[in-house]
C-alpha cells in the first residue's frame, strides 16, 4: 500500500510541475478558477432574489447543497477523472498493455497515478460554500447530523469512484467511448438540484437505479433537515450495489481484454 501512496505523491508532483511549466497559463488559470467558482452561488443568488426559491430549501441550505456537490465532484476531478480518460486514450492507441506490465494492480495503479490539479480549486470552492452556510445556518459540528453528513460524503465519493470504474470498463467494450464519457457526465447534471424538484419517476431513478442523489441531496438533507434511519439504508444499498457491479464489470472487461490478447 505504501507503494501506492508514493505513486500518488509522485503523480501529484509531476502534474503540478507540468502545470507550472506554462507559467502564465498557470497564473491565469488559478485566477480564473477562483472567479469562476463565484458563478454558481451568483446564479443561486439571482434565482433567490427574484423568486421565493426552491421549495424546501432556503438560500443558505441550497448553497450548502451546491457546496457539497462541488466538493464531491472536485474530489472526483482531483484524483479520479483523469483515470477513465487515460483508459480510453490508451485503449484507442492500443497501448493499454503498458498498465499490465507494471508491478501494480492496473486499477489501483491507474487510480493512484491520475491527478488533476484543477480539482483542488473545486474542492476549495466547495469547502468555502459549505463553511459559509454552516456558519449562517448555525449548525454544530458535534451532532449526529454532521456525522451522517461526513459518512454520506464518503459514500458519495465512493459512488463517483464506481462511476469512473464503470466508464473505464465500458471503454473496453465500445469504440467511441468519449461520446459515452460525455453522455454519462451530463447525467450528473440531474444531481445539481434537489430531488424534490423532480417528479416521482426521476426521483426514484436517481435514488435507487443510478444513485446520483447521493452526490449532494442526501448529505445536505441529513445535515439540514435530518434523515430517518430507514431512508439511510435505502440510500446506502444502491450505492454499494453500484460499486460492486462496476468492480465486477471492470474485472470482467480486464479478463476479456487479456484473454483476447489485446
Amino acid at each position, binding site marked *: 500500500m505504501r507503494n501506492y501512496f508514493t505513486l500518488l505523491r509522485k503523480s501529484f508532483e509531476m502534474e503540478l510541475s507540468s502545470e507550472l511549466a506554462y507559467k502564465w497559463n498557470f497564473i491565469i488559470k488559478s485566477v480564473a478558477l477562483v472567479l469562476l467558482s463565484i458563478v454558481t452561488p451568483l446564479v443561486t443568488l439571482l434565482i433567490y432574489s427574484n*423568486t*421565493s*426559491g*426552491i421549495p424546501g430549501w432556503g438560500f443558505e441550505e441550497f448553497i450548502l447543497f451546491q457546496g457539497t456537490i462541488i466538493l464531491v465532484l472536485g474530489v472526483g476531478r482531483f484524483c479520479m477523472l483523469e483515470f477513465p480518460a487515460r483508459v480510453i486514450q490508451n485503449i484507442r492507441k492500443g497501448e493499454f498493455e503498458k498498465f499490465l506490465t507494471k508491478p501494480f494492480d492496473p486499477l489501483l495503479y491507474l487510480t493512484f497515478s491520475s491527478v488533476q490539479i484543477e480539482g483542488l480549486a473545486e474542492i476549495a470552492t466547495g469547502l468555502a460554500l459549505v463553511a459559509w452556510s454552516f456558519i449562517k445556518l448555525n449548525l454544530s459540528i458535534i451532532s449526529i447530523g454532521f456525522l451522517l453528513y461526513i459518512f454520506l460524503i464518503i459514500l458519495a465519493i465512493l459512488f463517483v469512484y464506481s462511476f469512473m470504474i464503470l466508464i473505464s470498463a465500458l471503454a473496453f467494450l465500445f469504440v467511441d467511448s468519449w461520446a459515452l464519457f*460525455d453522455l454519462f457526465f451530463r447525467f450528473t447534471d440531474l444531481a445539481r438540484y434537489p430531488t424534490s424538484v423532480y417528479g416521482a419517476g426521476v426521483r426514484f431513478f436517481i435514488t435507487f437505479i443510478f444513485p446520483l442523489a447521493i452526490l449532494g441531496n442526501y448529505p445536505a438533507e441529513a445535515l439540514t433537515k435530518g434523515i430517518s434511519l430507514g431512508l439511510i439504508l435505502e440510500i446506502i444499498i444502491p450505492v454499494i450495489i453500484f460499486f460492486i457491479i462496476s468492480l465486477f464489470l471492470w474485472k470482467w472487461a480486464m479478463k476479456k481484454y487479456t484473454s483476447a490478447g489485446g
Partner: protein
Amino acid sequence: MIKKFLASLKIGLKSAVIYRFHFYVGLVTAPLTLLIYYYLWKSIYGFSGQTIINGFSFELLVSYYAINTIVAWIVYSEVDEWFERNILNGELTVDLIIPIHLFPYYFLIHQGFNIFCLVVETLPFLFIATMVFNIQLPGVGMILAFIVGLLLALLLNFMIAYLVGLGAFWLKRITGMRRAKNTIVMFLAGGILPLSFFPIWFQKISEFLPFQYIRNSIINIWLYPQSLVELLKIYFMQLFWIGIFWLIISFVWKKASKKFSGVGV
C-alpha cells in the same frame, strides 16, 4: 475566392461526418438538460405562486432555455482549442503553407461542422422541443430577423474564441483562458439565466458589452415580436463589436505570426 471558401466548408463538413457520434450524444443530453430546467422552474414557479416572473411565464422561460440550446449550438466555436492544440504540437505549420488566410479557413471549416450539427442535432432537437414542451414558433418575419441576428452572433462568438486562441502564440497552453472565456460568455450572455433576472444596473451595462448579443438578444427575437428599431439596435451592436474584434484580431495576428516558432513538442 468563393471556390476556396466552399472547399474549406466542404472539408469541415466531411470531417464532421466522421465525428458524428459526438453530435448524437448532444441529441440525448440537450433534452435532458432542458428537462432539468423544466422541473427546476416548475417547482420554483409553483412555490412562489407567481405566474409571471421578470416578464417570463413558466412556458416562456422553458422556451427560453430551448431556444438557448439551439442558439448555443449554432454559434458554437472551439477554434481556441484548435489553436492551443495546433501550436502545442506544431501542426499549425501545415495550415500556414496553404494559400488561404487562417481566419476564413478556420471559420469555414468550423461552419462545416456547425452545418452538420444543424442537420443532425439542432433541427431534430427543435422538433422534439416543439413537440414535447410546446415551444411556439414566431412569425416568418421574426424568423428571418432571428436568422440574421444568429449569423452575426455566430461571427461575433467565433471572433471572441479566435482572439482567445491567438493567446496560445504566447502562452502555448491556454486552458485557463478558455475556461474563463467559456463560463464568462455563457453567464453574461444569458446562457444560464435570462438577463432580466440580473440587477437593472447590470442590464444597463450589458447593453454595451458584446455578450448578450451572442445569446440573450437573439433568443428574445424568437420569443417576443420586436420593433424594427429594436432589431436594428441589436444588429448595430453586433456589427459594432464585430468591427472592434476585427481590429483587435488584425493587430494581435500581426504580432502573433511573428511570435510563431513552428516547433513541435
